[in-house]
């Protein structure tokens, strides 16, 4: 009868959840920080242990793979470095996404907060980790004298697109995993395979005539749009298009799942 008596639709509740979560930024910024500090509490280097770990991996893999692939180290090391940094971000999201909601059970059951707050907190803390790793790349290109120039700024919108995709997949995987607890295990094994089949330690040209194996891989394109500008050239148009397409699909799935099942999350935990 009266407009105010009609219960708000699921989609508008989902949108309200998002707006509420964004508005609570002081909370998730803080919680995201604590998530990182918590792991390195009372250690001397603190979160810079992350940086140290990544630096060692990059140097070791760069040295070995430039021998294995017979490529000059000056070319391969920065490529491997930035590829690994981006991949670490992607795999951290995929590994952790299943526990975005189930890991926040104690919060969800005690206090009503927008559900997407937990997604923002999660993606934010993974972004901080990447920020800790990024100086390695800067030091590396300074050492090799490979300044990419102004084209590097194209990596910023590309990275934001990657973060958006990370947040969207976290919503979908977090929801599904809250209900079906096998999903995180499946995702973990798939993530390892994706790492091996995606050109991160090697370049797509090495596939020779089978280069379509790289071009058919959406992860390759998502990495490329960030990696290319930082190495001094614009990404290929097809990488941009595939990335945008992936984002749209990701968005549709996340919105559909979240608006349908948002109210059920508390019951599943």
């Amino acid at each position, binding site marked *: 009868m009266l407009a105010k008596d009609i219960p708000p639709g699921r989609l508008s509740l989902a949108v309200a959840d998002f707006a509420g979560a964004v508005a609570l930024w*002081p*909370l998730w910024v803080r919680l995201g920080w604590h998530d990182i500090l918590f792991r390195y509490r*009372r250690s001397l280097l603190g979160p810079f242990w992350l940086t140290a770990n990544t630096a060692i991996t990059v140097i070791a893999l760069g040295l070995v793979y430039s021998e294995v692939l017979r490529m000059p180290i000056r070319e391969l090391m920065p490529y491997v470095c930035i590829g690994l940094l981006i991949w670490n971000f992607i795999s951290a999201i995929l590994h952790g996404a299943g526990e975005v909601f189930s890991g926040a059970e104690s919060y*969800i*059951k*005690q*206090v*009503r907060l927008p559900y997407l707050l937990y997604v923002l907190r999660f993606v934010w803390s993974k972004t901080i980790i990447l920020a800790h790793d990024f100086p390695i790349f800067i030091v590396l290109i300074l050492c090799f004298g490979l300044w990419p120039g102004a084209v590097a700024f194209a990596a910023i919108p590309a990275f934001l697109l990657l973060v958006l995709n990370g947040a969207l997949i976290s919503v979908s995987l977090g929801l599904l995993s809250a209900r079906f607890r096998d999903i995180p295990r499946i995702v973990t094994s798939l993530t390892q395979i994706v790492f091996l089949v995606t050109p991160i330690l090697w370049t797509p040209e090495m596939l020779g005539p089978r280069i379509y194996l790289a071009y058919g891989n959406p992860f390759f394109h998502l990495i490329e749009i960030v990696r290319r500008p930082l190495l001094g050239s614009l990404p290929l148009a097809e990488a941009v298009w595939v990335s945008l397409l992936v984002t749209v699909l990701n968005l549709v799935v996340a919105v559909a799942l979240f608006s349908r099942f948002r109210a059920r999350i*508390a*019951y599943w935990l």
Partner: protein
Amino acid sequence: MLLDEVAVSFPVYQAGSRSLKKRALFHGSGGRIGRDAHQRIIVEALRGVSLSLKRGDRLALIGPNGAGKTTLLRVIAGIYEPERGVVRTRGRISPMFDVSLGIDAELSGYDNIRIRGLLLGLSPRAIEQHLPDIAEFTELGGYLDMPVRTYSAGMILRLGFAVATCFEPEILLMDEWILAGDAHFLSRAELRIKRFVGHASVLVLSSHNLDICRRWCTKALWLDQGQVRAFGPVDEVIADYSRSASS
């Protein structure tokens, strides 16, 4: 605050099949165990619960273990959105269910007050304003600068209570644990609650301690197997409840 015919049931995914024998033997106080349209096991935690409270009301939830008291508190808090029925609340809700929520044992008392305040929906500025008042109520003094891992359970309780009540919430929800404090704390807590219930707030307290219910509350709701057995003035409902419990 208004609840109309609220029903909540939980799917239980790992319960396996339930035999007829188990069902026939089930006479406990908990929510009824049933099946939904997909033949999944569900626990009907609340069935057709209706109540309305107005400003200044203090409600005690009583009933045996598993009767649905905590579930009802969570429904009022908006954590469980009911499958059927309507929940309408006006005003800021301050839930106090878990004393250790958001407590980071490595951080100082002050930092934990800030996190808890944010969790309860306060702005950073409002928290800084309330900080002296909170610190005063906790009576923790120098401990507030120390990491919370040095605190006793009772000290954490005081900290949580002080934050939850600092901004005079319109609706305060409390579960059992609040009564774990010492006598000194309880009398101070009672005073503080009386004060802001005086300024038009609603208190809902779930407890087995009938003495405290009588002292703190004006109304009572007796829940049994997820249904309302009685709702009315606190003395009458508690008298009925005690009669049934002792028989």
